[in-house]
């Protein structure tokens, strides 16, 4: 679900910035109330995720083949799946591709989102409103609907993209962007960036609007130049927001699935364009090799936790 995650503006930032009002916490020593309050959350999470995570771990140690499709129980093979995976060049190509995709998409998203936030701050109300409404429209588009439109935009015969490129003198007549892995991923990155910039731009803009004009004015009166004000006031204040949106984008872009799957549907060659999500899908749902699919899933879980560890740790620190 998280591929499509559209967290509302600044939500993740919120918990970070609000000082914990510790005096108002009721220090009830014997009350069972909090335990009852968290019980529903725990029940739902255990019911929906406890079993799958356990199954995933157990299954990753089992071997699935043709026999298992006829009901023969799979046997335990220890670390065999992991060894096969870690020694296969295919997995490393997919992992490398996923990481590269995620780095490029996330940094582009944050860079463009940041620039647009600055632009929104500089222009008048009318320009800002037009940009914000456009962003909201793009943001609100359901992923599958957005993908369908994009596939139509890049359609090799009658898509408007090729038509426009031809007007600009590019030889794009009848060019199929999805047939080649490089241009496939270029298109995928453009789409992912298009979808995620609104969240980033609006979050950073929200951050910028919180910087009080008085502080900047005071700095100007003390003789700080525009660059000094940017360097010493705006950037430090905006860094927490930037680092959180960047981390969230990294985590979300690592698990991008829907966009890749639907582009593959539309004519990409799956083997050369798989990222981790579609690779697991192909192994498990496609070839019924649950053992290997589970091993890749466990690998992906570990990878995601490793990447997000910094974020989790910084959030936990504020609990102290």
């Amino acid at each position, binding site marked *: 679900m998280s591929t499509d995650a559209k967290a509302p503006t600044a939500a993740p930032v919120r918990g970070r910035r609000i000082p914990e009002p510790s005096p*108002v916490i009721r220090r009830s020593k014997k009350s069972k109330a909090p335990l009852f309050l968290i019980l529903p959350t725990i029940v739902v999470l255990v019911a929906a995720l406890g079993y799958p995570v356990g199954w*995933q771990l157990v299954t990753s140690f089992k071997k699935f083949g043709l026999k298992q499709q006829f009901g023969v129980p799979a046997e335990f093979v220890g670390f065999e799946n992991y060894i096969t995976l870690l020694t296969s060049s295919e997995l490393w190509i997919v992992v490398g591709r996923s990481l590269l995709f995620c780095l490029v998409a996330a940094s582009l998203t944050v860079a463009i989102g940041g620039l647009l936030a600055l632009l929104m701050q500089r222009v008048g109300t009318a*320009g800002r409103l037009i940009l914000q409404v456009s962003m909201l429209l793009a943001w609100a588009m359901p992923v599958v609907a957005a993908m369908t439109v994009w596939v139509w935009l890049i359609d090799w015969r009658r898509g408007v993209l090729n038509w426009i490129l031809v007007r600009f003198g590019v030889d794009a007549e009848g060019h199929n962007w999805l047939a080649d892995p490089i241009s496939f991923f270029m298109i995928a990155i453009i789409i992912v960036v298009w979808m995620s910039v609104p969240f980033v731009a609006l979050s950073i803009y929200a951050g910028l609007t919180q910087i009080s004009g008085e502080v900047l004015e005071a700095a100007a009166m003390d003789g700080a130049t525009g660059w000094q004000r940017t360097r010493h006031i705006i950037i430090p204040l905006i860094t927490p927001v930037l680092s959180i949106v960047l981390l969230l984008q990294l985590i979300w872009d690592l698990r991008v699935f829907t966009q890749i799957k639907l582009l593959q549907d539309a004519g990409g060659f799956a083997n050369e364009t798989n990222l981790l999500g579609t690779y697991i899908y192909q192994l498990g749902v496609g070839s019924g090799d649950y053992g290997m699919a589970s091993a890749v899933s466990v690998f992906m879980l570990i990878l995601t936790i490793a990447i997000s560890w910094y974020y989790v740790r910084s959030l936990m620190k504020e609990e102290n």
Partner: protein
Amino acid sequence: MRRKSIVTGLLTALTVVIALIWVFPVYWMFNSSLLPNSVLQSTTPTFLPIGGSLDNFTAALADGTFFTALGVSLTVTLSTVAAVLIIAFLGALAISRFKFKGRKSFILALLLIQMLPAEGMFIAQYKMMSSVGLLNNLIGMTLLYTAAVVPFTVWMLRGFVAGVPAELEEAAMVDGLSRTQAFLKITFPLLAPGLVASGVYAFLQAWNEFTVALVIMTENQMKTLPLWLRGFVQASATRETDWGMVMAASMLVAVPVIIFFLIVQGKMSSGLVSGAVKG
């Protein structure tokens, strides 16, 4: 002064151009959905839906499967929103108003679970649902969606609950209200923006979700709108793709959520942005 106004003008022009580029795919969906296929077949695109009609919509709605999918999507989405709001609210209350043993482990677990990629778990979830007979089942689907959204919303609501000082409630109790009354009359209204924001988040997640639905909902009668749209595109692509009809179908999936989003957006962002990044 003159130079400044020129710069402002240029920046405004740039902003408008960027806005147009950004909104173009959305506009193109709208434009193509109104044009007949004969026009879309032309190698020269038509940029305005002049002489357009709603024929594509009629055609996309013709077999009635849209309404089945709409029903499934609405049921799953609304149940998810309701379940998420209740559960996340209680959880948020616990971690922001009480200190208890295991509080930190609970928060750490929430944060880590939030990181679990659905893409790494859908096979296991499929196996689980099939073993308890909940494949193609609205309750099973709602359970999975709720679990996917709850960790983030507990975390998000926690900020809102913490933002309402308990002193307000206590003052009301001094004035003679019971704890429940004080909560309902004082705290609850102040939490409304937070609840709206969490509800919208849950709504968007459930309405747009594709991966889990793709794996769990295999029967035609149980397809959600995103799955319906994908099936529609695939069916149309067996021949020459009927882009007009496909775009009309995309409009049918996108417009409800776009309208909903624009209505609640103001409420949501005012709630969220206020105090979001106070230094």
